[in-house]
């Protein structure tokens, strides 16, 4: 074997081991660069426009509601997100269980009805709902935003929970029935706890998508402001640094909640394993 082929074999081995971590790591960096930027500029002594660095200050963090209307829009977004998440999670979970566990005559149509909203761009979903609301003369506002968000979150919930239901062994419920559990008890004490991680993941995804939505909201919001809409409108005359504070804080809170939940779950699993 010549030195050349040995060298290339070594190179290949190094590449094989490190190529994926390298690209993957760079991808995470790519994902996080603008968030680091948003975070850094939340400390900018910005004044009216937060475009150039003017010096470090904690004022924006001390007074996150300092800019007009920013906290109102955040409150709206949280309210819409929470309501739409609860509605979509309940409706979507029920559909997911129904579709996996039961046979229907119109199975294909049902699956299509779940798939279509996912295969429709937001601008079309927003435009068609707006056309509908205009045609029936509905007043645009928080109510129409919640309806719109629930509608597009349902499909995401169904898809996420369906995978979890499909991976469950239906014999577990039969075992519960053999042990004289009523169907309700079997569901509530066996199936539901096993589905819970999938339901929680679906709810988190629904909330994240609702909280971050701009296009559908823009079509159906009337004069109501959400946080993304506030930022978009503000972008033309300069986004206040308080928006950066809220964006950063929401990111950190979401991170802490989920990681905290995971540590708790890992600890519980360890405890159970010890038993």
């Amino acid at each position, binding site marked *: 074997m010549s030195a050349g082929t040995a060298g290339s074999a070594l190179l290949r081995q190094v590449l094989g081991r490190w190529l*994926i*971590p390298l690209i*993957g790591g760079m*991808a*995470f960096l*790519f*994902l996080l*660069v*603008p*968030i680091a930027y*948003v975070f850094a500029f939340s400390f900018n002594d910005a004044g009216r426009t937060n475009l150039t660095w003017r010096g470090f200050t904690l004022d924006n963090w001390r007074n996150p509601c300092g800019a007009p209307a920013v906290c109102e829009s955040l409150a709206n977004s949280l309210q819409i997100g929470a309501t739409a998440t609860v509605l979509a999670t309940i409706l979507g979970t*029920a*559909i997911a*269980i*129904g*579709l996996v566990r039961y*046979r*229907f005559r119109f199975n294909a149509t*049902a699956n299509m*009805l*779940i*798939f*279509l909203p996912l*295969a*429709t*761009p*937001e*601008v*079309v*979903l927003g*435009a*068609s709902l707006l*056309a*509908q609301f*205009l*045609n029936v003369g509905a007043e645009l506002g928080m109510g129409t935003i919640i309806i719109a968000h629930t509608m597009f979150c*349902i499909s995401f919930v*169904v*898809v996420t929970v369906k995978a979890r239901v499909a991976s469950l062994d239906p014999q577990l419920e039969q075992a519960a029935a053999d042990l004289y559990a009523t*169907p309700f008890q079997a569901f509530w004490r066996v199936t539901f706890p096993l589905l819970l991680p999938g339901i929680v993941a679906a709810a*988190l995804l629904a909330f*994240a998508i609702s909280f*971050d939505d*701009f296009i559908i909201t823009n079509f159906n919001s009337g004069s109501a402001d959400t946080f*993304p809409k506030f*930022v978009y409108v503000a*972008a033309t005359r300069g*986004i206040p640094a308080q928006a950066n504070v809220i*964006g*950063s804080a*929401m*990111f950190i*809170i*979401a*991170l802490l909640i*989920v*990681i905290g939940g*995971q*540590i708790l779950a*890992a600890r519980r699993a360890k405890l159970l394993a010890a038993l």
Partner: protein
Amino acid sequence: MALLAGERKSPVIHQRGADEISSAKRRSRIGYLLILPGFIFLLLFFVLPVFSLLATSLYTKPPGADIGQFAPALQFSNYTDVLSGYWPEFLRSFGFALVATVAALLIGYPMAYLVAVRLRGHALLQGILLVLIIAPFFTSFILRTQAWKQILADEGPVVAVLRAVSLLPPDGRLTATAFAVVCGLTYNFLPFMTLPIYANLERLDTRLIEAGNDLYASPATTFRTVTLPLSMPGVIAGTLLTFIPAAGDYINSALLGNNQDTTMIGQVIDSLFFRVVDYPGASALSFVLMLAILFLVILYVRRFGTKEIL
């Protein structure tokens, strides 16, 4: 085991079998109860609005009517008008979305592979990285896109470095280019590519990769013949969930492009609705966009032939 199997032949069990049939019937009614509320919601707020959109797309403006006043009609010329006016934006949207989807696949697959396969067993690290993929949603994608705009701005750091090393001519710029818009699309929809691939690779049996290695296949061959084909459902779901929203997006082209050469179809629909107040024209464009994407999706799914798409 045999003993248990023998016992199952007792008449009592037959009795239970009959019970099971009747309970299965009752259960199917439960099935309808489960899916009905959600489907009624979707019928009211997805299916019906699409028909509303179709009806509106054929409305006509009566002579002398106020702005925003239209009358029901079957004016099919709305379609030919908007298509002849805006077909370049249509083609551009699909082109941008296609390039962004390929880029997101090239970035998102290794990302998903790293978390799902390479880090298998490190549950906490896996969890943290997974959260990092979703958590950017909470910063608001408009805030993040605006951040990109400032990072890539003419007076920003990236342009300065690229000009210094002559990768960019002295008057070259990154914002207001097609390149910037495609980068923005890739960035914004990367989580929608990564998550479905992750969900698929998470279930990948790594012993299959070991088997490939044992049979003297190079890592590249193993990947091409084992890992990739098994992960195709995830890849198809990811590419669809990236391409569809990217084709309709207009935030990236508005913030990172914002000139004639980067206008996408979503921007046109938005401005027809809210600035021109041409509801029929905007509805016609939306409807064509929906049909075009559905057509492409069906072709794509047929071509790569997975039945269980999502």
